[in-house]
């Protein structure tokens, strides 16, 4: 398989799967080689990787406030008695 011969859409799908580690080993190796030689694809992968890293910051968002936790427990207690 030659990446250069693939349609843009197919190539993008492969790159996304590569980024998300969803490709079998042989295709992954092929993409890694391609990345090393293709500036455009390397740029795409690098910037999308950074985007994902930035998004992951949201994982550190604050947990529910204590007042919301208490309100939920009170609602559940009422629902269990209904």
């Amino acid at each position, binding site marked *: 398989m030659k990446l250069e011969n693939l349609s*843009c*859409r197919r*190539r*993008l*799908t492969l*790159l*996304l*799967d590569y980024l*998300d580690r*969803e490709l079998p080993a042989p295709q992954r190796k092929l993409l890694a080689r391609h990345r090393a030689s293709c*500036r*455009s*694809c*390397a*740029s*795409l992968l*690098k*910037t*999308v990787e*950074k*985007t*994902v*890293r*930035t*998004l*992951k*910051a*949201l*994982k*550190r*968002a*604050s*947990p*529910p406030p204590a007042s*919301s*936790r208490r*309100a*939920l*427990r009170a*609602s*559940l*207690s009422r*629902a*269990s008695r209904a």
Partner: protein
Amino acid sequence: MQGERELIERSRNGDAEAFSRLVGRYEDRIYRLAKTVCTGLSAEADDVYQDTFLTAFKKLKSFRGDAELGTWLYRIASNLCLMKRRKKGSEPFVPLLDRPHDHEDGPAHQLRDWSPTPEEAAHKKELVDKASGALAKLPMDYRLVLTLRDVEGLSAEETAKILKLSIPAVKSRLHRGRLFLRDEFEKSL
């Protein structure tokens, strides 16, 4: 740690204490999803958080257990987010998402580095604001996919099950959403 199945069984029989323990296992995740997808509107996020667990408690008898409890809760929360959007009726218009796939970016994206600086990484709030501000510009369908995949770390298959989408549809939204966010982060330089 008490087994989840046992807690589910006790909850099905109306044991609020058992259900409260299940809530404790999942509430941070559900609140985070609600807050991220409802784009920072605390009141809406709080409604989704509360209603997810109240709905789950009422419908627990219909939970067959062929999916993980977490997946089921994510599904309830996602549906509640979508219902809120329908009620509101407005969505951000993002013409970029209608553009055909285009990745011939050239060198520009290589040269500009907007990834979190050590200072930003150290200031949690600024980084969270930056990410959630960019995410808010996307339609909710995209926010849900990006949140489940890239924030919560679920697989494409799990995300597809939760949102009742095909895997290719999840991947398409994920990729378009990421490219849009990348451009937004670059603009913020």
